[in-house]
């Protein structure tokens, strides 16, 4: 018996196709959800139009704290997007089978968040009309240009890694979706790229997936390492750290793992796919998340204990600000609620059941969001030269309504991309699930051909 379907009886290709395409056809609640997302985005858009018209002055950012919620959200988005690489590349390459039904979910999350990460950078620009100058005058010596390059590359590879496993599903979709709108059928036809289930085609697709899975590992490491270098390459207190690269990467896996866990729950309940994403998968995912969080915890210890032990001038301000000072409440909430307590909870089998997993996932991802805030803002409040002779508001920072609205637009936008993908295409690769069930290519081809 395969790992995918531990409890159920053996499925036929017919049931798999109908199970996985049913949610695509069923629109119950879908419109309301889309309307909700669009409303959130509409509010954000209004705030953004105002920001475009009146400049970044409408935000709470000022001369000293010039990286605010936008940049910390940017890191959060990049971080969450990294999970695509972890699940479909790393785990896929070493032959872990249980990821089959969740690999595409991870890839959808990667796509949605990576695309909006790029947009958030634009939101942070006072003059986005000059964005092109980044390419015309950008300096190769600056991590910023590398960041732009590597984000673009990551998006491209993620699109392909999403698309490739989708191609063999197209014949099933073409067959199952004859009752759907014309434009949808057209998309399925185009995206099938002439795939008809021939063995050479399967071989080619598997080979290409393998190539991309290998390629995305260094690119994904680069994307988040370079993002961390935006900070670590400056001599500023709190950012001037040699472990920022791995610290960010492991933190990213934690955020992405939590996102996958939430998406698994929502999609499997909403799409009625409990037979495909089972308790077994939540258990595995929970264990994976514990492992990731333990590694991240280890980096946290290094990142805070080492400077905290030495308390170098300047560092002391920063560290004490986090431990006992102005940021203590947020810091400890994030560290305890978003990391330490979830680690402890997830060690218990009962906590790795679907519902507890959902809540733990939510706690971890909220923690991950504010962890980025904790990394970005306190450092800016302590520049090397004292802040002097400036208006009172320059001294501190808390994002205002505009920034929250625009950030929410980005989050809603990423969720919207995931929603649309989940509405157009099955959330699991039909053919791979079928393979797991022991169904051969010939059987699948036969199924597609018979009418």
């Amino acid at each position, binding site marked *: 018996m395969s790992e995918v379907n531990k409890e159920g009886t053996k499925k036929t290709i017919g049931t798999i196709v109908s199970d996985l395409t049913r949610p695509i056809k069923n629109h119950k609640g879908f419109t309301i959800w889309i309307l909700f997302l669009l409303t959130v985005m509409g509010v954000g858009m209004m705030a953004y139009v105002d920001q475009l018209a009146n400049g970044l002055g409408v935000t709470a950012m000022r001369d000293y704290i010039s990286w605010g919620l936008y940049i910390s959200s940017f890191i959060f988005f990049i971080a969450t997007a990294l999970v695509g690489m972890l699940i479909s590349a790393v785990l896929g390459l070493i032959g872990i089978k249980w990821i089959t039904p969740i690999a595409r979910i991870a890839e959808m999350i990667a796509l949605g968040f990576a695309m909006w990460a790029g947009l958030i950078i634009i939101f942070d620009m006072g003059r986005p009309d000059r964005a092109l100058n980044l390419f015309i*005058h*950008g*300096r*190769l*010596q600056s991590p910023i240009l*590398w960041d732009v*390059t590597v984000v673009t*590359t990551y998006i*491209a*590879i993620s699109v*392909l890694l999403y*698309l*490739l496993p989708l*191609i063999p599903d197209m014949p099933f979709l073409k067959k199952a979706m004859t009752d759907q709108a014309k434009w949808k059928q057209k998309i399925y036809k185009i995206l099938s*790229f*002439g*795939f008809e289930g*021939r063995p*050479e*085609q399967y071989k*080619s*697709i598997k080979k*290409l997936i393998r*190539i*991309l899975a290998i*390629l995305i590992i260094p*690119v994904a490491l*680069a994307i988040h390492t370079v993002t961390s270098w935006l900070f670590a390459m400056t001599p500023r207190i709190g950012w001037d750290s040699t472990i920022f690269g791995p610290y960010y990467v492991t933190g990213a896996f934690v955020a992405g793992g939590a996102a996958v866990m939430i998406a698994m729950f929502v999609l499997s309940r909403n799409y009625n796919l409990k037979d495909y994403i089972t308790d077994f998968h939540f258990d595995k995912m929970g264990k994976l998340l514990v492992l990731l969080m333990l590694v991240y915890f280890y980096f946290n210890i290094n990142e805070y204990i080492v400077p905290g032990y030495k308390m170098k001038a300047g560092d002391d301000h920063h560290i004490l600000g986090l431990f006992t000072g102005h940021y203590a409440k947020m810091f400890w909430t994030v560290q305890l609620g978003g990391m330490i307590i979830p680690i402890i909870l997830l060690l218990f089998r009962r906590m790795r059941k679907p519902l507890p997993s959902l809540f733990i996932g939510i706690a971890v991802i909220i923690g991950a969001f504010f962890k980025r805030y904790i990394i970005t803002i306190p450092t800016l409040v302590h520049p090397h030269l004292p802040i002097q002779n400036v208006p009172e508001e320059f001294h501190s920072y808390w994002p205002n309504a505009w920034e929250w609205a625009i950030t929410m637009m980005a989050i809603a936008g990423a969720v919207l991309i995931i929603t649309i993908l989940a509405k157009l295409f099955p959330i699991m690769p039909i053919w791979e699930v079928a393979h797991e069930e022991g169904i051969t290519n010939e059987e699948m081809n036969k199924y597609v051909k018979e009418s």
Partner: protein
Amino acid sequence: MTYLNKIKIFVLVFMFILFTSSINAQWNIPADAKNKKPPIDPTHTLVKTGKDLYKSNCASCHGTPGQGNNIAAIGATDLGTADYQHSHSSGQTFFQVEQGNGGMPSFREKFSSDEKWCLIFYIKSFDKDFEISGEELKEQKADLRLSLVEKIRTVKAYATTKDKSGKEIPLEGAEVQFFIKRMFGNMQIGELVPTDNKGMASIKIPENIPGDEEGKLNLLVKFKDTDTYGKVIKSKTIKWGSKLKIVNITDKREMWGSLHRVPLWVLFSYFGMTIGVWLVIGYVVFQIIRLKKL
């Protein structure tokens, strides 16, 4: 005197006063000291010597006599006032300079007796009743002319003055100073050089003085004794300095350079990696398009 120097001295003196406050008693001047008479007669030359000594040893605290630019805060009085002149005899001033008191240092060891008397004569010269014998020192307007001996890197300064008939004659025995102009202030080259009987003073300019890009230096020549000869300053540009090589740090390929000066290893690793990855992506896209034909 610069403002900074004044502050420095002020601080020094202030500390000095603190240390000696315990012994800072009133001046105790014995009667015979008050009546002590100078062993030599004051002449204009001696007053002039006293003035030079005063300028470099006393003016920092007492200021220029009669000008009121003394540091009253530490108790150093203006020695040029009529008040002072009337209440202090030459002998008393001599005693005070020798002895010192509180913030006033003792100059007993620093100057010879004659030098001290020269100082007293200078101070006393602000008393209009004070009689100075001998010929009055005449201002002797002089001029300087510079000529360069390229081969031996030597500057010759010819000092001239006018005789009674207005004819130009060489000035002998005037001390001449040579300077190179630097960013902040002037750098003196060598010692004072007195002019010889042809009115000539010369100095060799050392090698390796950093000049501008062409090795140009700005030479300044003047008389030491500006009181007598006037504030004559002659300047000349000489090309004997070492050439300054201005290395613009943004001209090299460096991390901090412009895009066009990117270090080659950054350039190659960036384009190497980017092109490499995108070639693979391109290959995958190409293979997807070819899928149909398989």
